[in-house]
Structure formats: C-alpha cells, structure tokens
C-alpha cells in the first residue's frame, strides 16, 4: 500500500479566503502606516549618532545635586504612600458599588461607569486637570494617583466580589444580617487577602507613576527629570533614571516579600 508523501498542517483560519484576507490586511496596514506616518526618517537616522552623543553625555551619572534628587524622591514616595492610602479607602465604596451581585442594578451601572471613565484617561490627562484646578505641585499628583489607585483597586475588588461563589453570600443573608454585617462577615474575609495584595502592588506601581505626573508639573521626581532633560543636563538625567529604577526595584522586592509573608 502506498502512502501520501506530502502533508500540510491545518491552518489556523477556517477558509483560505479568511487567511489571505487577514494576510493582505496585515500587509496593507503596514504599507498604509508607513506611508501616512509623518515620520522624519532622516531625523530618525540622525538619531543614532545623537543617541551615542547623548549616552556619552549621560556617563558618568551626575549625582552632585544629591539633595535635589533626594527631595524629588522623597516627594514621590510620599505621593505614592498617600495615594495608596486614600486610594485603598475610596476603592471600597467604589468596588462595592460595581459588584453586580451585591448592589441593585442602577447603582451597579453608576459604579461601573465611574470605574470605566476613571480608567480610560491616562493619568497624565487627569494630572493636567488637577493641575489646572489645584495648581502645580504634589497635591495635583497625589489626587491623580488617588484616582488611578482607587479605580485599579476598585476594579479588582468588584471582580473579586463578583467571582465569589453565591453560596457564601446567601449563607450570611439567610441569617437575616443587615447589609453592613453582610459586608463584614461574608465579603470582608473573602476579599481581604487579595485586597491587601493588590494594594501593596499598587503602592509599588504608584512610585512608578509618580514619576510620570511630575512631567506636567504635578510634583515628584518626574518634575526634576523633565527639567533636567529640558536643560540638556543628561548626566543628572541618568542619575535620576538610575535612582528611579533602583527605587522601583526595591519597591518590587518589598512588595513581593510582604505579599509572600501574608500568604
């Protein structure tokens, strides 16, 4: 008996039309983007020698303005802690309102909409608004990060509550407990470990994000960094970047340690 001597693997796509359609769409997209992107490729090519030049100017990192650097770092860390603290607190009502197995439908929709909107816009945009209202400085930054924090933690919280087995809620409801007691006995024990874990993660993330809001003047080390770039003070920039990376690294280390400890 003779056997076939060719074989092709079955395609991911059901029909060859779909496959060629997708392939041509992808190629078409690349051509389209190449053409429409107003990229100054000359300038970009010049970027390579410029990059070399900048890196040369970055080394050695200039830590001489130590006190300025530390002030920025301190401010960022304070912002991160403050934002996490208040973010954790505000996340509770927001998260509770966004869980469809806990609150009536209209409340749920408002909660979800609130979460959605606060998550849509990048924190820089939010930061700009807070700067407009409250002026330059770390207050705007803290408020921005509070919004980012409670929307993040709140979403996790809502998902956690919705993923609960209905039996747990039912059991406490069946005892005739009022809503606050329901929260305390049914919800709180279930969500507490994850809530704390997520909050600690968020603390670490806030340190990272505090660098960004500074770019629009909302305080923290980001402001110092943006200023150094605009002054072409690249040695200082590298010093700041190294500090930021180390800070995040330490923060992540602590975050993992504490979360492991809690387990």
């Amino acid at each position, binding site marked *: 008996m003779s056997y076939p001597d060719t074989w092709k693997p079955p395609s991911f796509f059901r029909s060859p039309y779909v496959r060629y359609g997708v392939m041509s769409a992808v190629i078409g997209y690349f051509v389209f983007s190449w053409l*429409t992107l*107003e990229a*100054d490729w000359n300038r970009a090519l010049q970027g390579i020698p410029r990059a070399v030049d900048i890196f040369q100017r970055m080394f050695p990192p200039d830590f001489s303005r130590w006190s300025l650097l530390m002030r920025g770092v301190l401010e960022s860390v*304070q912002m991160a802690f403050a934002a996490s603290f208040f973010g954790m607190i505000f996340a509770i009502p927001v998260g509770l309102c966004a869980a469809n197995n806990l609150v009536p439908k209209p409340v749920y929709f408002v909660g979800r909409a609130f979460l959605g909107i606060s998550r849509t816009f990048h924190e820089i945009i939010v930061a700009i608004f807070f700067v407009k209202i409250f002026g330059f400085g770390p207050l705007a930054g803290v408020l921005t990060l509070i919004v980012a924090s409670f929307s993040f933690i709140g979403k996790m919280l809502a998902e956690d509550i919705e993923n609960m087995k209905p039996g747990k809620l039912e059991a406490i409801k069946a005892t005739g407990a009022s809503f606050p007691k329901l929260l305390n006995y049914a919800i709180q024990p279930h969500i507490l470990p994850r809530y704390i874990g997520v909050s600690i993660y968020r603390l670490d993330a806030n340190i990272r994000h505090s*660098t960004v809001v500074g770019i*629009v003047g909302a305080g923290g080390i980001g402001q110092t960094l943006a200023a150094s770039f605009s002054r072409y003070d690249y040695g200082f920039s590298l010093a700041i970047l190294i500090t*930021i990376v180390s800070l995040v690294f330490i923060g992540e280390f602590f975050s993992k340690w504490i979360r492991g400890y809690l387990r």
Partner: protein
Amino acid sequence: MTRSELQQKYPFIWKRFTPAQTLTRYVVYAIIVFIAVWSVSNLDIPWFYFLDAHVQAGDLLTRMIPPYWPFFVNIVDPLIETLHIATLGTVFTVVLTFPVAIMSARNTTLNRFTWFIGRFILVTSRSVNTVVWGLLFVAIFGPGPVAGIFSVAARSIGFVGKLIAEAIEEIDHGTVEAIEATGANKLQILLIGVLPQVMPVILGTIIYRWDINIRESTVLGFVGAGGIGIVLYSSINLFSWDEVAVILISIFGVVLVSEYLSIKVRSRIT
C-alpha cells in the same frame, strides 16, 4: 441548659485574636496611620483650594459643554497616528521580546549571566514609564512618531517579556525532554518543545499590551512623541475647553473600541 450552666461548662471566652495578635494588629494600624499622615504632611496642601474646587470644576465643565464638534476634523489624523504608534510599537516589541524572554526564563537561558541580563532588561524597561521613555527618545530622535514608537516598545518589552518568561518557566518539562531525546538542537527544542506551550500566553499578552499602549500613546504627544497628545496639550494651553472636550470624547471612543476588541480576541484564544 441555662446560660449560667453553659458558662460553667464552657468557661472559655472566644476571642478572634490572641493578645499578641491584637497587639500586632494595633501596632500595624498605628504604623499605617503614621505613614499616611507623614506622607500628606509634606504636601503643603492649600486647603482653601478644596473649598472652591467644586466651583472651579463646575466652571470647567460649563466651558467644555457643548463640545466643539467641528474640531473633530483636526484630530482625525493625529488619532490615526496614535493608533499607528501603539500598533507599530507593539509589533516592534514582539520581535524584540522573544530573545529577552528566553534569556529571562531559568529553564531556557544559557547561563546565570544571560539570565541576569535578561531580568535586568525587563526590570529597567518596566521601571520607566512610557512617557519618560518618550523624554529620552525625543531627545534622541527628535519630536515625532518615531520617538513614540520606540517609547512604546521600550516599555512594553518589560511587560510582555515578564509574562512570557513566567509562562516559559511553567511549561511541562517532559515535553522538552522528549524533543531533546530525538537529537534536536537547541533552537528546534525551543520551536517545537517550548513555543507551542506558551503560544496562548504570548498572543493574549500582546493583545492586552496593545490595548494598554493605545492609552499610553494618547499622551505621548505631551513630550512631543507624536499622536493626539500634541493637539490635546495645545488645546489645553489655549484654554479651548470645548475642543478639549471633543478630544477627550474621541479618546474615550477609541479606548472603548480597542478594549472591546482586546477582550473579544483574548476570549477566543483561551
């Protein structure tokens, strides 16, 4: 049994926490409160701002509504540019992330040195926000979308690479053993033994990051790295709040669509 009989039989008082645990809890609470107060202390909060903040916000809102819709024509191109930055940046990331992820996974890396380098690249990439990368790349490549694409890629490598490395470390070793036993070389082992196992994670993560990158790309213009951020920045500085409203609404729409796509495709994959 009456209450007093019960109390005699079971004289133990149930407390949820031992005295030691209670003490620890209160100490922890005290520390947290202390940190909270300390963190806010330096902020120099102009409390009177809070008083009229709602007035300011209300004023802002009235200036934004109704949105100045004709302005939309000006933002179509920047919006498309934003999408390009996000998409091309993500594509760029995919190419770069494979070697980094392979280096960062203990079971596929060559030696401790390469593992350390891989992890170092991932941590550095993750520690610096896209916009901050934007500062650097604008200085290198000048203002424009090229800087934006590189910034998106620079940040995404850390995100995508970390998740892929974790997935690689969790694969079934038996499969790799079997492929190794056929006499395959290292590349073939990666291709046939490792890659198919982590494929769903790779695809899911890439699409997830693409969605996040769209949000990030909207603000890259603030540092000059292209996209709608430039328009947004100028409109805000010109106090043209009704134009700002149009921009924000369009951003909201774009993000909504991309999130929907992202969720849809990811649910098909897993």
